[in-house]
């Protein structure tokens, strides 16, 4: 059995977290949960400092003398003025800037992405997959077509078919989520059985 401290800690916290569903709410689970939240918060603070603040303040401004970098720093700091009622309006300045830049990027770059997606639906109807693909794309678009009444007449049938395609999509998404969660359980059990207890094939 592995005796390294990190392995024992990993084993302890895995069992502690599992104890919530396999046993019931208990102190071990609470300890593990609190440690996880604490470590995640600490990690985020350290990474934010090392990757955002330190390179800009210490290296760019302090060492390289790029003093104009102070302007975006001040703009960022203005976001916090929303916590001070009377000067809260100042936070709209950086927000307006970011909205403008973001919109410009989206308007210039998003059409290319969407056009390829639309182009991908122009398929030859020579295979069952292609036929299903095109029918699915068209009927789902009809389902989300809000400017005409879709709850009666022939368009209702098309819309209902679109709903079925959507339900199949949701089912596939749910199945993929189950698959992902099972993978997490699998990883923990692989650790306990193969790495910690040295059982099975590894």
């Amino acid at each position: 059995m592995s005796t390294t401290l990190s392995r024992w800690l990993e084993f302890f916290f895995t069992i502690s977290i599992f104890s919530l569903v396999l046993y019931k709410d208990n102190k071990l689970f609470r300890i593990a949960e609190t440690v996880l939240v604490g470590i995640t918060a600490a990690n985020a603070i350290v990474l934010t400092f090392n990757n955002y603040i330190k390179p800009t303040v210490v290296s760019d401004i302090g060492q390289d003398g790029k003093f104009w970098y102070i302007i975006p720093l001040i703009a960022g700091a203005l976001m916090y003025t929303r916590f001070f009622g009377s000067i809260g309006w100042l936070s709209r300045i950086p927000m307006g800037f970011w909205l403008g830049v973001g919109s410009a990027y989206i308007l210039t770059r998003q059409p290319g992405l969407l056009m390829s997606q639309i182009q991908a639906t122009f398929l030859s109807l020579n295979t069952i997959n292609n036929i299903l693909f095109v029918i699915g794309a068209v009927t789902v678009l009809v389902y989300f077509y809000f400017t005409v009444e879709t709850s009666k007449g022939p368009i209702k049938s098309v819309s209902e078919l679109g709903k079925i395609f959507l339900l199949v999509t949701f089912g596939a998404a749910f199945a993929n989520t189950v698959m992902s969660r099972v993978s997490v359980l699998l990883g923990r059990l692989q650790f306990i059985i193969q790495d910690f207890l040295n059982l099975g094939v590894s």
Partner: protein
Amino acid sequence: MNMWEKLQNIDPRWYYYLLVLVVALPIIKPWGLPIKVGPEARSFYETVEALPQGSTIFLCVGYRTDSVVEMDPQLGTFFKQALDKGLKVIAWAAVDEGAMVAQTVLGTIAEERGAVYGKDWINLGFKPISDALLQKMIDDFHQAMAYSEIGGGSLDSFEITKNFHSIKQAELIVCLSNVTPSPGERMIRMISIPTGLPIVMGTGSVSVPGEMPYYASGQYKGLLAGLRGAAEYELLTDYPGSAILGMDAQSAAHFLVIALIAIGNIGFFLTRKGR
């Protein structure tokens, strides 16, 4: 109370015990269920395989420790394939824990294969993904990734990045991510479309429905879908690993979930009919 009503009122913990048992048994004694390779994983493999020796690949790592079971085998297998083919890899983490998880996998494999850090591969650490950053990678890579290298080194001091001034100099982007919004989708929009740089994607199962349309439209040249995709990739590259070993347990768990859904629905209709 009949059998169906008893099943509906059973303590949910029994289902968890059953799930743990079903997943644990194949880990102890694998069954060796067959794995069929799909076109998505094959395209991923072939795109990397087609690159000439000495090509540079830009690797985006966009997953955290919660996804290592699915994503580490994808990353590890890709890196082995790249090093064995003589390709250079510039890795960048788009999410906070990405640099750390990447370093664990890449560092171990590089050491095994005698790859030289800074010459054959480099870990540029974590720099939060944004449209502006991706644009800067095209315009001035050194400025975009300044001060981010995991050891704190300057890009000018490494052979692999010394003359790498734009991401356009890479031959391929490999994005392995399991977060929302998808870094891959952003890289298509900001880099792949304007520069024509091809991109292949690897993702966790939960993100597959969101990523699949980009593969279907040809914007991703290949796609590894979750642990299954990683297992297929391991088969294709002939580097068997934890993904192949995990597929029996994954299949067993799926069978259990399908059986429980079927039993639950049968019970629901029968008890409703009884009323």
